[in-house]
């Protein structure tokens, strides 16, 4: 299970890196979103896959899963959602103002 998860997260990172290195702003945003998902999978794997019950003390015995990674992932998903939506809106606004979402066009002259 661990091996599968790591391979999956590796594939996600590969795809995300490819997307981030492209010059289209939307692809960069999609890349960052995928990147965060890869790290969520990694977090989950790092918690281990032991345990068979929900982590409520006293109800289901001692064999419960580690709840911390899940809490971390939940927080991280919320943050990533906020950042991604802001990033999308900002890029749309940039597209409206400057008429392009091509990073080479947006780069412009350095000392502007």
């Amino acid at each position: 299970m661990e091996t599968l998860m790591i391979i999956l997260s590796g594939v996600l990172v590969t795809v995300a890196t490819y997307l981030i290195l492209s010059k289209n702003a939307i692809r960069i945003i999609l890349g960052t979103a995928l990147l965060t998902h890869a790290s969520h999978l990694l977090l989950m794997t790092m918690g281990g896959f032991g345990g068979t019950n929900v982590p409520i003390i006293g109800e289901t015995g001692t064999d419960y899963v580690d709840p911390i990674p899940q809490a971390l992932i939940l927080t991280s998903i919320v943050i990533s959602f906020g950042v991604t939506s802001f990033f999308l809106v900002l890029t749309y606004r940039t597209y409206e103002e400057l008429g392009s979402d091509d990073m080479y066009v947006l780069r412009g002259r350095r000392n502007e």
Partner: protein
Amino acid sequence: MNNIIVFPMILPVLTAILLVFFRKHIILQRWISVLVMTANIVVSIVILLRVQAEGILRLDFGGWEPPFGILFVADSFSMLLVVTTNIVTVACLIYAMFSVGKEYEYMFFYSFVLFLVGGVNASFLTGDLFNLFVSFEVMLLSSYALIAFGGKKIQLKKSIPYIAINVVSSWIFLVAIAYLYGTLGTLNLAHLSQLIAENGQTPLVTVISILFLIVFGLKSGLLLYQWLPASYSAPPTAIAALFGALLTKVGIYAMFRMFTLLFYHEPQITHTLIGVMAALTLIGGSIGAIASNDLRYIVSYNVVIAVGFIFVGLAIGTQVAFEGSIYYIIHDMIVKALLFLIAGTMITLSGSPKMNRMSGLIRNYPILGWLFFVVMLALAGIPPLSGFIGKVLLGQAAIETGAYVLLALSFISALFVLYSLLRVFMDCFWGETMLSEEEEPPLRKGILFPLIMLGVLTFALGLAPESIASFVIDASDTLMNPSIYIDAIFQK
């Protein structure tokens, strides 16, 4: 009760939410935000004094005792930075009142600034690694909004790479946290420190520490500063000053915390790497500062040089070096804010960021000119000003440990700072004035007030460093001896 520790974070955040409902009442927004931040200065000074009297304070949220819950920890190092943050924010807020303009203020400008400060203070105070990540995100998300604030074309252009680089570095942060949790099974800083000390810093932990080095290097601009000058030159003056004074310092704080509390067992690997990166940062920043003709880039590269200088202290890693670094961080927050505010005022007055379009400003604006002169001397480390004491201590530590290359680089970089700013002073303030008396735009008193306030502070800090000496020594003591921190966390 230690509940007071949470105030530096919660006051700005709650006020920011409150101000959202007073969108139309700009006067109210201005005064509430300035008053709250002033109250925050008082509160944080009270906490600092309590830390001095009673030792490190901690607050366990929800009564979950460490290492299980999230907690805030106030030691001298973090509280000194919180106090300085609040002072700088008040100055920038007052400057913003007179300069940013109504169209900005209507769009929740003050709320965003307060969220930013809340995030910065939370990053300084937290004692939990994941909470540090969340605080960073609070701070960064407000900074994303502020950097694009107003939506000028140049701001939009510069904000996309800024956000992209920060999202990627946050990702590395998350991955590093995941690895550390997978290796040691905890995220409480004190508990992590204890576990690493007990089990030894294995090669695996060292590799993870390098990941943290990359993350905080990106955030603080240590070697990986290439995004910094372009981003910091885009937003309006008051915002750029906040960024220049605060954002990189949070990265610096986190780096100091991680590499003095957790990963201090293998200094020949990690601290050597930090030393090399600091040296390269000093060189790169110096070249950048003298290469540009654009005032905004010159001041931004000055931030980079200061970052390199502060990390020299961490690389040397003795108590004297830490004292020097702490003095220098405090000095740098105040003076960088002042430098950015003055540079922004000069650009507003002359209508162009290019140095060759400015001349003879001191004739019309003598106070501004002399303040710039003071800043220049302070950054170069001339005695009666605040930069001096930090440089002396760092120099002393470097000689004691025989780190002559770092010593030479950090003092040569001071010459580059002096040269780059002296060039600005001579080109822009001296010479024939380009504007006649009728043409010159008036400089409002409200804009000068925060500048003078920060200028007085740099004098005060330079003339009486003993006033904060006991706090700085206590802070460096805690950095040197992680057991003080750990004991404070685990006592009942």
